[in-house]
C-alpha cells in the first residue's frame, strides 16, 4: 500500500474531519499491532523469567483487537482493500461493472449503517448492565465504543464511493482507487 496522502471527497470542514479520521486509522492500526506485540511478548517473558503472568494481558489484547478491527475496516474501505470474489465481476463489460459497483457500494454502505445502529443498541444494553472488565475494572461498554464508529466510517466511505462512481467516468473501488489500478509494489 503506497502512502499516498488520502484526499477526502467531502468539501470544507467535513473533508478535513474525514482526512483526520483517515490518519487516525493508520496510527491506530500500527500502534495497536505494536502494543499488542509488546503486551504479548512482555507476558511471555514475565511468565518464563519471573514466573509471573501479567493479570491484564488478555484484557488489553481484547481492547486492542477491537480497536484494530474497527479502525481497519474503515481504512480497508478507504483504500479498496476488503476481500471480494471479483472473478465474475471482472469479466463483465465496463458499463455493467459500473452499474454493479454502484449497487455493491450502496448495499455495503446500508449494511454498515444498519450495523452501526444495532451496535449502538448493544452498547446501551451493556452500559445498562454495568459490567466491568474483571482485571482492569473498566466498564465493558467503553471497549465497544469503536464498534459503531468503525461501522459508520466504513458506511460513509462506501456511500462516498457510490457518489464518486455516479459522477466520474471510471469505475472506483473506493473514493480514490480506480479499479485495475496497477500498483508496482506487491502488497501481501
Amino acid at each position, binding site marked *: 500500500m503506497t502512502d499516498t496522502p488520502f484526499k477526502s471527497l467531502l468539501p470544507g470542514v467535513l473533508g478535513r474531519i474525514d482526512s483526520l479520521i483517515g490518519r487516525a486509522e493508520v496510527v491506530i492500526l*500500527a500502534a495497536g*499491532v505494536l502494543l499488542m506485540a509488546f503486551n504479548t*511478548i512482555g507476558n511471555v517473558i514475565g511468565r518464563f523469567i519471573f514466573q509471573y503472568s501479567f493479570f491484564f494481558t488478555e484484557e488489553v489484547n481484547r481492547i486492542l483487537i477491537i480497536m484494530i*478491527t474497527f479502525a481497519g475496516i474503515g*481504512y480497508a474501505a478507504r483504500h479498496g482493500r476488503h476481500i471480494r*470474489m471479483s472473478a465474475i465481476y471482472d469479466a463483465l463489460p465496463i458499463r455493467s461493472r459500473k452499474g454493479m459497483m454502484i449497487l455493491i457500494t450502496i448495499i455495503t454502505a446500508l449494511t454498515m449503517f444498519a450495523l452501526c445502529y444495532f451496535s449502538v443498541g448493544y452498547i446501551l444494553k451493556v452500559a445498562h448492565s454495568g459490567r466491568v472488565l474483571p482485571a482492569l475494572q473498566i466498564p465493558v461498554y467503553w471497549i465497544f465504543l469503536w464498534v459503531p464508529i468503525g461501522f459508520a466510517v466504513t458506511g460513509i466511505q462506501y456511500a462516498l464511493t457510490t457518489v464518486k462512481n455516479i459522477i466520474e467516468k471510471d469505475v472506483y473501488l473506493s473514493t480514490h482507487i480506480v479499479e485495475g489500478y496497477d500498483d508496482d509494489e*506487491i502488497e501481501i
Partner: protein
Amino acid sequence: MAIKITAIMIVLLLAGLPMMVPLLLAAFYGFYELFDGISKMEFMVQQMLAGIRPASLIAVPMFILAAEIMTRGQSANRLIDMVMKFIGHVKGGLAVSAAAACTLFGAVSGSTQATVVAVGSPLRPRMLKAGYKDSFILALIINASDIAFLIPPSIGMIIYGVISSTSISELFIAGVGPGLLLMVLFSAYSMIYATIHNVPTEPKASWSERIEAARKAIWPLGFPVIIVGGIYGGVFSPTEAAAACVFYALVLEMVVFRSLKPTDIYKIAKSTGLITSVVFILVGAGAAFSWVISFAQIPQAILGSIGILEMGPKAVLGVISVSFFVGCMFVDPIVVILVLVPVFAPVVKAVALDPVLVGTIITLQVAIGSATPPFGCDIFTAIAVFKRPYMDVIRGIFPFTLILIAVSVALIFFPQIALFARDLAFR
C-alpha cells in the same frame, strides 16, 4: 429458511460484494426470521464481538507480523539461499528447492500469499533461465506454497481451532506429516518433469559455499525451532509461540542483521493491522452467521437431506473433503472455514470423528481448492504477483492437483499420516 440463507450468501458472494457483506446479510436475514423483525439485532452484534474475542485468535496478527518482518528483512532470503546451495544441483534441483523452500518458509509464516511472494519472486526468474516452462513454474509455486497452510503456523488452523474448540497446538503438530509428504511428492514430480523435459542440472555448490549459506541461515532457522519445538515440547501455547516469533524476528532484523529501521517496523505494523482487520471482521461476521444457522438447525437439515448420518466415518470425511475443496475453488479459504465448519460440526460429533484429523483434512482441502481453477485465490495472487494471464497460470496445475487428491485420499484411509506426531507429542 436454509435455502434462502444459502441463496443470499452465494448470490452476493458471486456478485463481488466485499466478503463480509454476504455473511452479514445472511445472518441479518436469519435473525430477522428467527426473532420476527429487528428487535434482537443487537444480539447479532454481540455474536460478532464474541467471535473475535477468543484469546487464541491473537496468534493470527502475531504470526502475520512475524512473517511480514521476516519477508521484508533478510530472514526469508537467507533460508531460500541455504536450501538452494544444498539441493540445487540434483535433477530438477531448482524445482525441488522451490518446494523445499516453500515448506521451510511455511514453517515461519502462516500465509500462502506471503509464501508465493517470498519464494516465487526470487526463484521464478532463475527457473525460467534454467529452461523450465513457465506453466510448470507457476503451478509449482502456487501448489507448493499451499504446503504453508499445513506446516505450522497456519492461520487457517488457528481459525478452525477457535471455532471448533479444537486444540490449536495439536492441529499444528498434525499438519507437519501431510505437509512433508506433499513436499516429497512435489519434489518427486519435479525430478520426473526435469528428466522428461531434459532440463539441465545446476552446478553443485562447494562445501565452503554451503557452510557459508548455512551460517547465514542459522539465525532464521530458529523460527521453526520456536514454533514446532516450542509447541511440541509443550513450552509455548500457539499465541505465546507467535509472540516469541515476533520478538525473535525483531531482534534478528533490527539488531543482528540491521536490515530494518523503526520506520519500517511502523509500516509493517500498519499493514499487519490492515490484514488483521480484514480477517477479523470476517471472523466476526462468520460467528454471527454460524450462530444463526446452528440455532435454526440448518446444518442438520442440509446434512440430513443427503443422508450423511447413515454413512460411515470415511464417507463423512469424503463429503467434508469434497465440500471444502469445492468451496475454496470459489471463495477465500477463511470464509469457507467460517461457513462450513459450523455446518459440519453436528455430524463430526455424531460420527465421533477426531476433530484434529478433521481439521487437518479440512486444511489440506482448503489448500488444494485455493490452487484449483476456476477461482482458487492463490491463482489470483500469482496473476497479481507475476503479472501473467490467467490461462498461463493454470495450464500446469493438473498434475499437482492429482498429487494433492492422492494425498487427501491417503489421509482419509491412513489418518496416522497426520495423527502419528500428534499422538507422540500429546497422548
